[in-house]
C-alpha cells in the first residue's frame, strides 16, 4: 500500500507491505523492516531494527489531523492529502482563502480586540475568551481584514461557534 503522509509540513511517500510476519515500510524510497505489535486501540509498539518506539495515534477532530505521539513527542500528521492545514482556530480552510475563526471550546467572550473592517496581521489576537478559568486569546491565522465579527463582549459561545472571518486584504 502507498500513502502520502504529511508530518510537520513535509510530505513523505510511505509504502507498506507485509513480509514474514513483519512489515517492510519505505519512506521516500528507503525501506526498512518493522516489527509491529498492537498495545491497544490507539497504541502501536514499533521495533525498527532494534530501535523501540511507542506510538499512539488518535484522531483530532479539531484539526482534522491525526494526533500522534512518539514517546513523549507530540506531532500532527495528515494522511493522503486529507490534511487540514493551519492551527485549530482556522476552521479547516486553506491559508490563501477566507479564514473562519471558530471558538475552540465553550466559553465567554471577555474582550473583543478588533472591529469589523480592521486590518490584522497573522497571529494578532482578535478576541479573548474565558474557559477553564483561563483567558485565552484567539488569533488571526493570516494577514487580512476582519470581514465579519460575530461576538460581543460578555457573550457566551459554544465550541465551534463562528467568532470572526478574516479575508485577504
Amino acid at each position, binding site marked *: 500500500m502507498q500513502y502520502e503522509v504529511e508530518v510537520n509540513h513535509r510530505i513523505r511517500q510511505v509504502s507498506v507491505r507485509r513480509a514474514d510476519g513483519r512489515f517492510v515500510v519505505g519512506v521516500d524510497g528507503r525501506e526498512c523492516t518493522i516489527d509491529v505489535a498492537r498495545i491497544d486501540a490507539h497504541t502501536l509498539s514499533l521495533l525498527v531494527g532494534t530501535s523501540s518506539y511507542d506510538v499512539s*495515534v488518535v484522531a483530532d477532530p479539531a484539526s482534522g489531523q491525526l494526533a500522534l505521539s512518539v514517546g513523549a513527542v*507530540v506531532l500532527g500528521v495528515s494522511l493522503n492529502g486529507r490534511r487540514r492545514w493551519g492551527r485549530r482556530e482556522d476552521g479547516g480552510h486553506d491559508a490563501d482563502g477566507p479564514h473562519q475563526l471558530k471558538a*475552540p471550546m465553550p466559553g465567554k467572550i471577555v474582550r473583543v480586540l478588533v472591529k469589523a473592517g480592521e486590518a490584522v496581521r497573522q497571529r494578532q489576537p482578535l478576541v479573548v475568551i474565558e474557559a*477553564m478559568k483561563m483567558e485565552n486569546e484567539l488569533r488571526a491565522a493570516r494577514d487580512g481584514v476582519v470581514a465579519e465579527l460575530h461576538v460581543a463582549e460578555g457573550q457566551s459561545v459554544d465550541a465551534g461557534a463562528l467568532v470572526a472571518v478574516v479575508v485577504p486584504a
Partner: protein
Amino acid sequence: MKKVLIANRGEIAVRVIRACRELGLSTVAVYSEADRTALHVRDADDACAIGPSPPRDSYLRIDAILDAARRSGADAVHPGYGFLAENEDFAAAVRDAGLTFIGPSAEAVALMGSKTAARAAALGAGVAVVPGTDTPLSAEVSDADMARLAETIGYPLLVKAVAGGGGKGMRTVTEPSDLSGAVRGARSEAGASFGNAAVYLERRLTRPRHVEVQLLADHHGTVLPFVERECSIQRRHQKVVEETPSLAVTPAIREAMTAAAAAVARSVGYTNAGTIEFLLDEDGRFYFLEMNTRLQVEHPITEMVTGVDLVRWQIRIARGERLDLDRARLLAPTGHAIECRIYAEDPDNGFLPSPGRILHLRVPSGPGIRDDSAATAGLEVPIFYDPLISKLIAWAEDRPSAIRRMKRALGEYVVTGIKTTVPFFAWLLDEPDFLAGRFHTTYLDDVLQGRNGRAFGEPSAEVAEVAAMAAALQAVLSPSSAASPADPALAADAVSRRWKARARVEGLR
C-alpha cells in the same frame, strides 16, 4: 472530628481524601453535574450533588455545601484551594453551622484578603513591603494627586486590585501619561472580577523572584516556618513550575525571610496552614507581597524535602493538637524537589485549553516521583474548571538530579485524547537559563514571546520519519481510524460512545 466534607474537586479533593483516610476520618465529596464520574466522588465515602456545572451554581454555593454537610453528617470542612478557600463568609458560615473549618479563622482570611490591609500588617510586624500606597486609591482621586502619589513610588509601577489575584485587575505603567488610563482599566477589571473596584499602586521591581514561605500555626501559639519555595516560573502570573529550595536564597536570606514570615503570621494571630509570598530582588532584599490563607497548589514540594504531611497537620491543628515538629528540620531541606503543573492545554497552540476525554493515561512512577492527580483513563476533562490535571513532583538528592528525574518522568507521561503541557515542560527543562537557575517572574513570558508560537518538542528527523511510518501502519491495520481522522472511528472511543448512548437511554446520567 469524624467526617470531613471537602468543599472542592479535582486533585486537591483527592489529596485531602487521602490525608483523611490515613487519619481514619470519613470523607464527603461534593460535586457539580459535570463531576458525577470524577475521581473525588468515587473515592470519597459519601458524595453529595450541589448543583449545575458552573462554579457559581455549585462549588461557590455556600448554602448548598453546608446543606451537603448536614445531609451527610460531616462535622468538619476542608476548603482545598481556589473556590471558597479564601472566602471569609464561607469560613464564618462553616463555624456558625457548628462545624470545624480546617483552615484559619474567618477574621484572618478577611484581614489578609485585602492586599492593603495585609501590607499594613506586614509593616506592623516590621517586614518590608514593596513601596506603594498604604491605602486604596480614593474613588474620587484627581489625576494630579494620583500623579504625585506615583512620583513618590517611582516608575515603572503596577496598578493592582486590592482584592486581586492571578494578575486580574493589574496593569503595568511605565510612563506617567499612561497612569490614569491604567487605573481606569484596572478598576473596571477588578470590579468585574472581584466585585470590588478598589486599586492601589506598587513599585514594579526589576527582575524579581517570587519566593514564598510555608507556615503551620497551631492554636497554642506555635508558628513554624518551612524552607522557602521558588515560584518564579510563571506564565501570565500563574505558577507553572515550583521548586525547593531556591537557588537564590542563601542561608542568611532564609533565616531572615522565614523569621519575617513567622512574625507576620504571629502578628495577626494566624492559625492552620498559610503561605507568605515575597518578592526577592537581585540584591537579595525581599519584600512582603501577600499572604495566601490556605493550602497552596505547590505544597507537595515542601512535603518532599521535609517529610511533613501538611494536609495531615492542617487537620490535626484544626482538632486542636499541638505542633510538635522539629523546627530546625523544617528549615534544613533533604535534597531538592520540583513540581510541574500539567494542564489540559495545547502548548503548541497558545496554551489554549484542551478539554475532552482522556482515552489512555500512563502516569510516571518509580524512585522519587509523586503524581498528585484526579485524572483517570475515560475521564472527560470538563470545560468549567481550572485545567490542572496533575501535579508531577520529582525529588532527588540535588537540583540537577531532580531535573533529570523530572525529565525521565515526563517521558513516561502519556495522555491521549487531550493535549497537555507535558511537551512544554520537556522543553523548559532543557533551557540553559532554567538549568542555571537564571530566572525571575517574567522570565517565562519573555522567553515564550521570543519563541512567537514555535512548537515545543520539535521532532527530530528520526521521530518525524517514525511518525510517518506509524501513521501508514495504523492506516493498514485499521483503515477506518487512520485514513479518515474526522470519522467517529477509533474502536474504544466508539464503545464508550455506545455506552454513553445506552446510559442516556436508560436514564443514567
